[in-house]
């Protein structure tokens, strides 16, 4: 039934975005704290933050691709 696939696609996308936003927000908070405590390492910390954010977002986008496939049924 294509209607169920559409609903499932929407729910899946929303849930995966919740997970990604939570993870990346914790990451950003830790980065701000670390930069505030020790401004000398702010550059390295920022680089690691970008890499980790891209990895977390990569996992989210796997789920999004599946949701797109569902929504296009």
């Amino acid at each position, binding site marked *: 039934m294509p209607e169920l696939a559409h609903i499932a696609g929407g729910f899946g996308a929303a849930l995966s975005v919740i997970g990604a936003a939570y993870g990346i927000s914790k990451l950003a908070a830790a980065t701000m704290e670390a930069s505030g405590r020790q401004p000398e390492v702010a550059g390295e910390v920022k680089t690691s933050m970008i*890499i980790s954010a891209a990895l977390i977002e990569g996992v989210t986008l796997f789920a999004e691709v599946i949701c797109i496939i569902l929504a296009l049924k």
Partner: protein
Amino acid sequence: MWIGNLAFAADTLKHAENSHAGGESSSWMLHHISDSRTIDLEPFGHITLPQFPPIRIGGLEIDLSITKHVFFMWLVSLILIIVLSIVARSYKKQIVPHGLANLIEVFVVFIRDEIVLSVIGKDGLKYLHYFLTLFFFILLCNLFGLIPYGATATGNLAVTGGLAFLSFILIQLAGIRKHGLIGYYKGLVPHGVPAFVAPLMFIVEFLGLFAKAFALTVRLFANMTAGHIVILSLIGLIFIFKSVLVAPVSIAFAVFINLLEILVAFIQAYIFTMLTALFVGLSIHQH
């Protein structure tokens, strides 16, 4: 971006009219995102690219016809070859760069220092050519998708799969060159692991090699395609509501998402190169 949005409007209107008979008219979104055998220059018509019949090799049929993404990859390669040759040749006259060479040098020094040297160390300089090519190719392919009438070659699973396959080969080659063929695969399992866990660890690490390449593929593909789908959906809202009043809000959001996509284009090129360098570094420094 305004011209791009107007071109979109002309094209989506044509498609919405064409597919209105079926009621479900979201095929125009797929048409903008996926590969096709013609280059559409709405409203000026379209260019049909040369098609070749599929070649049979054994049991496989390989279709080498030229499609939109292939054409844009060639365009990107041509522009890179021309521009970077001119920039490199300008260094013969004077050591200090001027003009465009200044900009390219910023990127090259960034990749050499922050990505290759800091992650892999001095061994990585052997592979600097590959990382520079990878970065500039992915960056330019991503940016071409944002100009009017452009198509994102990296929004195609086959293209990003090919790039990840090349990176996979580089990771294996770098490790084998450093540790030898058997030594590299034995070194996948870390030291100090109990004997009964070692086979399991080997299988997990071996599959991890493929999982890393797969993740590189899907990350780049999904980031590029998702941005375009958001822009298309925002503009499509105008046609769903069938009212001009939605247009200012829609176009404003679409312009904002376009600017975000420029940032994402740079970040994704950087992430792909950085992760490949990271995996090559892990390969080389196995202990």
